[in-house]
């Protein structure tokens, strides 16, 4: 029985690595459709990765080992995060090694390495991007922690897999705090993945970019790994959201092969819907000035805290 669990584990990680560029491509396609542009093909991300992997690396003269190591660290942390998140099955042997708080730590590690690598060369843009990224990061982290605390309170566990298992056994649990947590989570997702209200992933305009400014000095396979890691990051975030708020269909402990296949299909449907929703949010909102970003994140934090309060007021009483 444990053997099959390892099969699921590796299968899920490989699935995440393979599907992540497709998910980014899908979001880009939906965005293009909504903005009346000709959409790039779904395989565009893969083609770009292939092109980048075939090129030779151009390194700045004063680049240290940190600059060269950062893409691998980024990619590694994102793959590890994908191993912990129950996107298809909850019977994950690796998941017992880290809970949701450790997961935030993983994302923070990736962020720190990316910021350090961006400052390593010493260009103005890299430093600017790194500073902005750290600002957004330190505002987003408490908000996402609060979102997780909401879920911890509701399900009585800090492990993502345990939460999904609990949800499957009490399908009728529905708490108003979930709504607050979900809204806060979407706001954090947009900010953390350099999406539109905070950062525009498609721009190279000097004064507004955050993520692009940090990866400006990278080329070839390094850039490919970073791009792949960022599409894995948004894929991971989408999977966390699915596991926390719409976990129906995820195969719980001791599921059969058929159930896992169904879980896979539902995951793909849910991801397609999430991608379309993200594209919609991005299309109807304007980019905020960078000084408005703290306001946006404070709002996310506040909504998550409100969720906690509402849970303590309403949830505790209804169960008593």
């Amino acid at each position, binding site marked *: 029985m444990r053997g099959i669990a390892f099969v699921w584990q590796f299968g899920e990680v490989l699935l995440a690595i393979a599907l992540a560029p497709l998910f980014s491509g899908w979001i880009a396609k939906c965005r293009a459709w909504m903005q009346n542009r000709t959409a790039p093909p779904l395989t565009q991300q893969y083609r770009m990765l292939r092109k980048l992997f075939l090129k030779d690396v151009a390194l700045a003269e004063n680049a240290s080992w940190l600059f060269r190591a950062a893409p691998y660290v980024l990619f590694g942390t994102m793959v590890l995060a994908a191993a912990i998140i129950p996107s298809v099955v909850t019977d994950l042997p690796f998941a017992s090694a880290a809970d949701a708080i450790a997961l935030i730590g993983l994302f923070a590690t990736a962020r720190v390495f990316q910021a350090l690598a961006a400052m390593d060369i010493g260009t103005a843009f890299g430093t600017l991007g790194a500073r902005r990224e750290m600002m957004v990061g330190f505002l987003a982290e408490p908000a996402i922690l609060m979102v997780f605390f909401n879920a911890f309170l509701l399900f009585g566990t800090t492990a993502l897999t345990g939460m999904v298992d609990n949800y499957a056994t009490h399908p009728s649990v529905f*708490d108003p705090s979930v709504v607050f947590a979900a809204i806060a989570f979407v706001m954090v997702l947009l900010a953390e993945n350099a999406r539109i209200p905070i950062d525009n992933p498609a721009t190279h305009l000097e004064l507004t970019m955050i993520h692009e400014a940090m990866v400006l000095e990278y080329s070839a396979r390094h850039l490919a790994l970073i791009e792949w890691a960022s599409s894995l990051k948004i894929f991971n975030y989408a999977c966390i959201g699915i596991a926390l708020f719409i976990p129906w269909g995820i195969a719980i402990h001791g599921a059969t092969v058929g159930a896992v296949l169904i879980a896979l299909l539902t995951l793909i449907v849910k991801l397609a819907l999430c991608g379309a929703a993200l594209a919609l949010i991005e299309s109807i909102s304007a980019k905020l000035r960078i000084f408005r970003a703290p306001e946006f994140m*404070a709002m996310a934090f506040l909504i998550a805290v409100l969720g906690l309060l*509402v849970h303590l007021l309403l949830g505790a009483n*209804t169960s008593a």
Partner: protein
Amino acid sequence: MLKSHLDVQLLNLLAAGMLLISFAMLSTRRTQQLITLFAWQGAILFLSTSLVAHEAGLTELYFSAALTLILKVITLPLILHTLIKRLGAQWDNERLVNIPITMLVGLVLVIFAFGLAQPISLLATTITRHTIGIALAVILLSFLMMITRRKAVTQVIGFLAMENGLFLAATSATYGMPMVIELGIALDLLVAVFILGIFFFQIREQFDSLDLHHLESLKEE
């Protein structure tokens, strides 16, 4: 009396939605958005009141729900929209003092309201008694909104939102007020909006702006 679990959860959800809208109102800058939010708050209030009426089997509450729908979702937002169009203030952007701090103050208010409502909700016997805390929080947040705003129109919207909170408190604590009082309050609100509308024009004529700061200094040449 029927006490289905799902309905209680739905009521809690609606009350939580009202709280969320209160915070959204606290943070929006545009007057027009504020009116739309106010209409949504009224709509949620209508839904939750009709749900309570259905749960408790009280026909009176249906009337007050209908009153809410007509007055707070349709009539008042319409009046306010025409009013700001006449005043030419549709696109008004209000400069607010530091939104994150206002939000944090709001959060403290919510905690205070929840703490205050805890003993009250133990005394009440209605199915909606847990939402008293939220209703109190909505009232206090509307107060806060009236304090932080400078423009006359937005202060009036804060006042109307406060009435929404009072109404929610009444329905959750005692299944609504007697019909006569409710009708009286509805009429009061309507008249208040009319009179304040006239005031808006007077204020603008005097100071060429709707900013209430001009009212604070004595004008003695």
